[in-house]
């Protein structure tokens, strides 16, 4: 197996995730896209871990999973809060900042 086949898979997932983040309106979908990105990172970490014969990648992959979980938790909490206040979870509506 080539190193690159994994890395390219990760790259493709990453880019799809980027597309999702940019193009999606629904906050939940944006969060899902972010998950895609995080997963692609994990694939990279584990690939390099195998290539270099070390276990550091595994450790970090686990950390990332944990962080992702936390992020989803907080993110969805935010989404709920927004929904409660604005009756919408479209990120386009979240433009309080422009005057």
């Amino acid at each position, binding site marked *: 197996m080539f*190193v690159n086949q994994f890395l390219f898979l990760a790259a493709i997932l990453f880019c799809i995730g980027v597309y999702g983040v940019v193009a999606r309106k629904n906050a939940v979908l944006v969060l899902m896209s972010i*998950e895609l990105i995080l997963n692609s990172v994990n694939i990279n970490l584990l690939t390099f871990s195998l290539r270099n014969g070390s276990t550091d990648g595994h*450790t970090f*992959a686990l950390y990332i999973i*944990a962080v*992702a*979980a936390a992020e989803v938790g907080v993110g969805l909490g*935010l989404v709920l809060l927004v929904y409660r206040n604005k009756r919408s979870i479209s990120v386009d509506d979240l433009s309080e900042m422009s005057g």
Partner: protein
Amino acid sequence: MIAQNIGFWIIALVMIVGALRVVTTNNVVHAALWLVVVLAGAAAQYILLAAEFVAITQVLVYIGAVMVLFLFGTMLTRARIGAESDLNNSYKKWGIPVAGAMFAAMGIALVNSFGKEKLPDTAPVVTTQQISDQIFGPYLLPFWALSFVLLAAVVGAIVLARKD
């Protein structure tokens, strides 16, 4: 090796299709389910990469916990269970060029850096013990930090979601 390769390509194909559906489907619930497919595929890839423990964690945490969270989030925000028309925003036209540019950058870098380099054929499966030695050894500090992050997230999520 060949079997593994075939496995990789099939799973990779499924993942890519799944990921594309996640970002293109018009139904939030479907998106979540497609995400499950991708995450499961990722777990399978981890196994191919000799990372059983991570794969299992992935299944447990992601497919178990995170997906449930997503589905709950979807329902609590009263998204319609079914197709919706305007899930995409006006920046959709930006998405493809940006993603394409990033892919180009990464692709060039990857080809230049790794070319035809191969992964070691026989790699010992990383045991859970090795991982725990790592976590509680050299990477203890990040682990603590992560613990605080999780704690903060829990507290934060509660605070945010509480009705008052």
